[in-house]
């Protein structure tokens, strides 16, 4: 057996050392070496998207990406590093619309959605169909779609600096009439 190699990855803005055998997927380095368990194992063959992370902004299925194929200059963002305190517009929209059910697929779903609204700030339904190929067994798809549209509107409103971002989210929540008066308040 090859001796485990020491290497460095740039994850969520930090340079982190890890040791793993050749061929170990990035997913398992994140989960088992770096303690970032927000990124999930669902299939191991890039079918379900639960393991989606960003590498230099692009959504990547980390279960089939050898960690050794990522160099220390490439910026990896996981769900834990998408924002400070869950304030990325996609995360806020997910809370506003109560998108998750069991939630297991949602880290990957959110990372895929965040990459989509970054590359296409005003995605059409077709864009969402094409980009969001993650599997959710509970069946959150319609709220995922609504959440992406809502986050996109919020980002557009925020970029015009009219400070209407919060009302936009509230409006989205109102569309489903979801009442937020607990810890997950919008």
């Amino acid at each position, binding site marked *: 057996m090859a001796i485990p190699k020491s290497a460095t990855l740039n994850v969520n803005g930090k340079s982190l050392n890890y040791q793993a055998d050749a061929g170990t997927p990035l997913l398992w380095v994140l989960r088992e070496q770096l303690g970032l*368990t927000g990124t999930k194992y*669902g299939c191991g063959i890039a079918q*379900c998207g639960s393991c989606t992370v960003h590498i230099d902004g692009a959504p990547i299925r980390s279960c089939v990406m050898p960690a050794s194929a990522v160099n220390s200059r490439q910026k990896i963002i996981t769900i834990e590093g998408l924002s400070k305190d869950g304030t990325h517009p996609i995360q806020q929209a997910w809370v506003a619309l109560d998108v998750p059910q069991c939630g297991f697929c949602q*880290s990957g779903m959110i990372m895929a959605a965040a990459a989509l609204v970054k590359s296409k700030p005003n995605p059409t339904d077709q864009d969402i169909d094409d980009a969001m190929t993650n599997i959710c067994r509970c069946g959150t798809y319609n709220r995922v779609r609504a959440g992406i549209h809502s986050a996109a509107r919020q980002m557009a409103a925020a970029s015009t600096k009219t400070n209407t971002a919060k009302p936009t989210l509230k409006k989205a929540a109102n569309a489903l009439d979801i009442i937020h008066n607990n810890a*997950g308040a919008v």
Partner: protein
Amino acid sequence: MNATTPKLKSSGSRRQFLQGSTALAGSLVVGFYVPFLEAATSTALTKATKPSDASNPEINAWVVIQPNDQVIVRIARSEMGQGTLTGLAQLVAEELECDWANVTTEYPTPGQSFERKAPWGSFGTGGSQGIRGSQDYVRRGGAAARMMLIQAAAEGWQVPTTECTVSKGVITHAASNRTITFGKVAGAAAKLPAPKEVKDIKLKGVSDWTIAGKRLARLDTVDKTTGKQIYGMDLVLPGMLNAAVKACPVFGGKVKTVNDMGALKRPGVKKILFVGDNAIAVVADTWWRAKTALDTIKIEWDEGQHANASTAAFNEILKTALEAKDAVVGSKIGDAPLAIANAVKKIEAVYSYPHQNHACMETMNTTVKWTEDKCEAWVPTQNGQAAHAAVAEAAGLPLGKCEVYKQLLGGGFGRRGATDYVRQAVLIAKQMPGVPIKMIWSREEDMAQGRFHPITQCKMTAALNDKNEITGLHMRIAGQSILAGVRPEAIRDGKDPVVFQGLNEGGTETAIGYTFPNLLVDHAMRNPHVPPGFWRGVNLNQNAIYLECFLDEIAAATKQDPLALRRQLMTKHPKHLAVLDAVAKRVEWDKPLPAGIYRGIAQTMGFGSYVAACAEVSIDKEGALKIHRIVAATDCGHAVNPQQIEAQVEGSFVYGLAAALHQECTVKDGRIVETNFHQYPCLKLAEMPKVETIILTSGGFWGGVGEPTIAVAAPAVLNAIFAATGKRIRDLPLKNHSLKA
């Protein structure tokens, strides 16, 4: 290594066995559900056997109130995405009259339940029972706690309790202009005796609800959006090792020989183990190392008597059983065979439904730490008490020395009511005493070792008179019984009553919504070696397809409108009819559709609720199906959280349409062919129709929500496909058929 089975000590007492099996019966067996209602109401409100501490005063088994007014509601049922945790908290909080903003939740453990004689009733979470099976006693728990808090305040003020009022966690004595919060009196309330006649507590009427019945946001969403939520698979314990496991892919087979191929020398690998007589596990420092080492090991299996079994062979057996004489009667009115013999016109069709895997997003896993005098297990389980019993049995320890810590489930759908994976994890940990070991199944293992949706066929025969009226209907179901696989002792006189879901003559659980002058529903049981399980929706799924699609066939053959035909048969079934009518009204059934769009309609009753759906589809020249919109109605009696009911209805279409369009598990050489999602496709976002949910709350009963709608997904779409193409699809999944004109 030699392939002898480590003999399990037969240490599980009869009592342990009974607790486990009763828990299973109580939660997962639909149709004769017996909640621990008595146990819950009689003991839930007695004092804790363990004194609560001053910072966490336990008012009763359901409610803890901290000095800072934080309310902790205990939730016995498992949360797996269905929203039960939030719904049950709403029901307790409603009667407690606390401030919803202060509510958090916690799971009591199965060990505490055992020690305190089950004050929380059943932990089992299946059969869409989470809310309806516990609503009465959890509301009484909340009400009793409120009464004790008021009594504590009143005693402190030396005024009669009747002069005190309560709202949002604040008790007021208006006459003396005094108020006090729950947190301030919780310590004193916890020392009071529980109200004596809990059964007689008057619960609030639905019209007075301020927390229940509202579209409240879930309590458990935020951590699911940041990666902070820990699932069983994410658990890390000090000194923990990881295990990967591989069981004989042919059900009933065993390990014959093992050649470890040097796997033990691979980095991080600690041990290679037998797990019972049918599986091998590798324990390593990381799961990835355990899994890759396991993949290199050569295991020769003794595949046993089912080595040549196949789906094709099962299908032949079931086909023969459609005409067999050994069928057991489920429903019988009049003499359907005679009506058929005397019919002016006879319509016949044979339908079938395949094996399917639950395919939870989080694969099966359990973490266990075993020592000679204690066994702890961290389990994503739908059935805490059954998991506890399974741990004790496999650990060789009494229940009192075992504990289960329930983890949030990354999907359940019925799969996690079984305890096969729990047992495996204990058998592994037992071989490394004192070391916590997290066993995770690979997706491939999860697909191979499922507890599968049962396989059935159904021959439908209708007798018509000269006015095209249905004079008799015979449904002959042939195939697998879930109970025969999971609880054979529940089969009485050869009958599995769960087989007849949705086809019972009456009752409040799962009754047929039509009146036929002559009706016979019978079942010729044929059990392949593939282990069956309760799969979200259970037998209602295929039974609704058989009946609702066949009625559509009769409508087409007799040139009747499918809705009008149903309505004629439903005059004595007003609740069934109401959901169907609600859907028909919303889609404007009597108005023409845009060119190229076609409709299909279906209704059924299951898990105590009435459901109907109408699907609007189009099919292009290449035969590609697009489902544009589904309108669905549910009458669940009372709606505890309408926005979560909508989420469950939408989710039910995802689960049901995935099954209808894409999913089957086929058997070849005794084993499941499909190994991962590339061969077992799930519904994707792009395929998801718009869903409009109509919630009816006719009251007077409490129905389930998580499952019934699944059953109308497939027949609504299949009937719409017929309307569009004239093609009648009788065998699923749809991927095996061409819809090209």
